[in-house]
């Protein structure tokens, strides 16, 4: 579970405060509501729908594994886990709204795994009812505990090594994971407890009576904060923290060795927000980028090339990431990846934000 890091918060606050000269408020920034509507309906909603679909598939594959453990069913569960990570990581460029306020982010994606409590439950004879699973702490369920059970340390798991109790536990937590992913997707599209779907609040930014986004610019700021926040998180959190400490335990997706794909999908999340499209879901709308291109084609080109450069640089880190952070020979690639993401972040903050939020 993550929030805007301090460095990004300082940078955002600063760039916004410096825009406080009164006459600047009257100059038009982004004034096309279609961009926020399409961000909502063509990017966020389909990303979460894809997440729900793929987490459902993960649960189905976990059940198949539990019913007939074999290297084939284990490999299928591993593939399903990796497939489900794609829409999740591609949603991290917009970590606001129900994913946060309803606690779905920690429920889905808490790490590091709490082995003490996991082992205690596995060693007990407690019935793994939905109520018991609901009571457990997030660090012993969700994506990463499922990852640990399916992949083992550094992908060493074999079907024969899975105990019946582990398989029972795995299906219990993938069932909850699926319930949470579906609740997250539904929170954007359907009314919860008499409240309007979150989709209506964001897409209706600036409409009378909208208490969440009373102005279009508040919603646009939300988009920008999300893009900047995940760049900061990848460069200065996900890469920097384990690398600075040379500690593989701090690596996200360390069991599946999927970290580099995770980070790339985080940057694709930024790309999806910018372009208003989700290629993996087959959706597309009027993106922020098209509005930028109409006003400053060179800036649009810089954002797009910055995105490509960042995704490429992350992909050049020698896998697996958990080994690279302890291997001096990988330092150049790690640094290059960090720099590429930071350069993109600087473009978003220093150039894109002043254009759209003035």
């Amino acid at each position, binding site marked *: 579970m993550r929030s805007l890091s301090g460095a990004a918060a300082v940078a955002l606050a600063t760039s916004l405060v410096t825009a406080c000269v009164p006459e600047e408020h009257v100059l038009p920034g982004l004034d096309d509501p279609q961009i926020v509507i399409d961000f909502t309906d063509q990017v966020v909603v389909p990303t979460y729908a894809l997440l729900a679909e793929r987490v459902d598939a993960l649960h189905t594959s976990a059940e198949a594994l539990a019913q007939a453990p074999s290297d084939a069913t284990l490999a299928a569960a591993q593939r399903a886990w990796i497939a489900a990570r794609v829409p999740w990581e591609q949603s991290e460029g917009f970590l606001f709204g129900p994913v946060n306020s309803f606690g779905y982010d920690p429920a889905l994606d808490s790490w590091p795994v709490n082995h003490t409590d996991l082992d205690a439950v596995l060693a007990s004879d407690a019935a793994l009812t939905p109520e018991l699973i609901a*009571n457990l702490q997030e660090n012993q369920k969700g994506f990463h505990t499922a990852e640990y059970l399916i992949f083992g340390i550094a992908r060493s798991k074999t079907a024969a090594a899975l105990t019946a109790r582990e398989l029972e536990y795995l299906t219990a937590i993938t069932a909850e994971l699926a319930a949470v992913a579906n609740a997250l997707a539904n929170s954007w599209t359907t009314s919860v407890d008499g409240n309007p779907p979150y989709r209506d609040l964001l897409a209706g930014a600036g409409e009378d009576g909208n208490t969440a986004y009373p102005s279009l610019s508040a919603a646009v700021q939300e988009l920008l904060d999300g893009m900047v926040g995940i760049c900061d998180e990848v460069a200065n959190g996900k890469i920097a923290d384990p690398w600075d400490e040379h500690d593989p335990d701090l690596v996200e997706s360390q069991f599946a060795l999927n970290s580099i794909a995770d980070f790339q999908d985080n940057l694709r999340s930024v790309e999806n927000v910018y372009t208003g499209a989700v290629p993996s879901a087959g959706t597309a709308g009027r993106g922020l980028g098209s509005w930028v291109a109409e006003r400053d084609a060179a800036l649009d080109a810089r954002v797009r090339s910055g995105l490509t450069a960042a995704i490429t640089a992350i992909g050049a880190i020698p896998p697996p990431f958990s080994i690279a952070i302890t291997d001096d020979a990988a330092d150049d690639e790690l640094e290059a990846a960090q720099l590429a993401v930071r350069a993109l972040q600087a473009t978003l903050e220093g150039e894109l934000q002043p254009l759209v939020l003035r």
Partner: protein
Amino acid sequence: MRASSLLLVLGCTACLDGIGEPGVLPLAGGATTVIDRSSNAYSFPAPNLSDEELDLHLEGDVAFEAVFVSPPATINPGLGPVFNNSACNRCHVRDGRGLPVAGQGPLGSPLLVRVSASDGKAVVPGGPVPVPGLGLQVQDHAIFGATPEAQVELAYDEVSGRYGDGEPYTLRRPRISITLANGEPLSAAVLSSARIPPPVFGLGLLEVVPDDALRELADPQDGDGDGISGRVNEVWHRAESTTRVGRFGWKASEPTLLQQAAAAYANDMGVTSSLFPEEDGSYELALETLTSAAFYTQTLAVPARTALEDPDVQQGEALFVDVGCVACHVETLETGEHEIDALAQQRIHAYSDLLLHDVGFDLADGRTDYFASAMEWRTAPLWGLGLAQTVLPYAGLLHDGRARDLAEAILWHGGEAERAKEAFRTLPASERAALLAFLRSL
């Protein structure tokens, strides 16, 4: 990178000034103010911190997000054995409010229930009396292998009313049922009070308003006959073993942010500290962690107002004064001296006097807390109020989150605020809308 950006902010504050000047942005938090109307608006560090202070703030940010787990563990051990939630930010979502939710879902229990006995021996002088088996708070979660103290269920009863012009409205009154671990309902003799987590930005400024300034605002016997009293709560300061002015919490029952943070670690998460140790004097939370978490809440920036050019907002601001809201929701306070320069001698617009006021039977919880009576609550600061549902979609307002929007929150007021509430209720619709527009601009 950080130092240079801070200078820009300081340079900018000169172009902004106080309240009430047309075309000038009022700095709600003085030089700690930031401009952002997104869901991150409560989460920025004060832009005028020194480099060292910013580092400590960022350490505190990590502490505020740290998820505690059952002992023994290598990272953040100490949760429970019973608790309401496992991390500060699980309840204070994006440093703002928490939803009025309790139970076993992914949110944990942001809504918690304080309890006390009507007589007996208090834990600290003047404080509430613990209930045998429960203490001062119902912890409705437990680590694996332990049993929660109780289950808390929340339901609502609809309450209908009409504005002066005949327009109907509906409020919802919460009904809390508590079932103890043994299956019995909580005795009706136990005093109980449900609360949602309040926002945590700007608190350092409130801590630095001098005691004398609050005593000067207080009018315990309503000596000026305006129908508004206002009392200082006097509460136990654990580190100094003496009584101090209470400032934090819904009933101003904690004197400092350090003690407030320690109380939350102990009561909400079951994590002991030097201020709230185990019975044998040992504790789980390092003092540095507690200090940094408290520092984080001292130094979060205050978001600036918005929509100042909107004529409705301007009209609403005048109505806020005319109707009498400002008698308690005092617009401006001045902070005093403090070791954190960023907080010292700031002119702030919190819209609170930090005093206890009787706001009537309908909001009363029936539970006293030091000098706070069953009907008294501390005037809630209104700064950043317009962002409440941006930061936390569907956020509820008031101490138990019963109000679904700003109008409902006003309509629940009674007691000393009855006259202001009635004035609002009987305003023409357009003026009610203007007053609400002003509140949304905060």
